[in-house]
């Protein structure tokens, strides 16, 4: 006659080991979840901060575009070259804790308003634009990277005379 098998239950020899194994498994799972959450929060924080830095940097561009004398805007050495020409430069847009520089590529170009006279780069005529007003869109585009993703942000300032 076959002897009935003894059930493996609390109190059995070696059951403590099983409990410890389960506890360590749970702990490792918890650690992995905590690590993943930490990395996610860290990434989101970095994303927010770099968006804030890029916004602040572009506020400089808007301020400069609003203040630059009109003669400088349309000159040969304009910081906003006439489209399709453009000026591209790598800029430091801010620093993270520890003084880690955050860099981005700034591209500037300007586009004439369609109603500018031909001499002002547009297709307007003296009948459509009798006062000969001249308008230019100054575009600043900032290209930057957060993690593996690339972003760009643009600001346009319209100047007339």
């Amino acid at each position, binding site marked *: 006659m076959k002897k009935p098998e003894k059930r493996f239950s609390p109190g059995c020899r070696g059951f403590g080991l099983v409990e410890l194994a389960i506890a360590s498994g749970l702990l490792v799972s918890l650690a992995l979840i905590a690590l993943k959450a930490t990395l996610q929060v860290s990434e989101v924080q970095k994303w927010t901060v770099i968006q804030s830095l890029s916004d602040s940097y572009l*506020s400089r561009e808007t301020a400069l575009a609003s203040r630059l004398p009109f003669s400088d805007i349309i000159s040969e050495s304009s910081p906003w070259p006439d489209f399709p020409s453009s000026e591209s430069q790598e800029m430091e847009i801010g620093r993270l804790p520890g003084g880690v520089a955050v860099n981005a590529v700034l591209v500037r170009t300007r586009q004439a308003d369609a109603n500018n006279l031909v001499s002002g780069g547009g297709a307007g005529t003296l009948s459509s634009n009798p006062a000969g007003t001249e308008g230019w869109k100054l575009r600043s585009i900032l290209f930057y990277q957060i993690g593996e993703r690339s972003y760009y942000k643009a600001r346009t300032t319209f100047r007339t005379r």
Partner: protein
Amino acid sequence: MTLIELAVAISISLVLSFAIVLLLGQQVRFYTQLQKFRFLREEAPQINSLFATILSGADSYRIYATGNTARSPDASPARSGTALRLSFQLSSGEERLSVVAQESEGGSGLHYYRADELGSFPETPSWTISRAPTETFFSNENGFLEIRMRDQNGSEITYGGNPD
């Protein structure tokens, strides 16, 4: 329980304890790191918003080397400095002055001083914009107002703006 089982149980307990300590350490490091980003994440956008509101209401600005200089009536303005004097034209035609200054004495921070109708500034700040920046520079080098702020952890952010 045999001696071997006891040894294995103690070893696993030790490993578990070590893992818990490691986890705790990681959480502390993470919290510290979060705090270091606080200036850029929370304070800087609020300061920017306040500056945008204050500057949009101002009619002109002058930059001074220090807050004390900005508050004295005969001081000469500079191209860059740690204080900004703003002029507000009231509807009555009167001029009202304010000073925004980064100061280290009397509670380090970015302070706002509002002059009375006679143009006298109070001894103590009217209010504190923020205590987070340890350095703030105002500059007019590029033809517009630039505000560069740093905190104690080396974070740096720059804003540009113009009064209306």
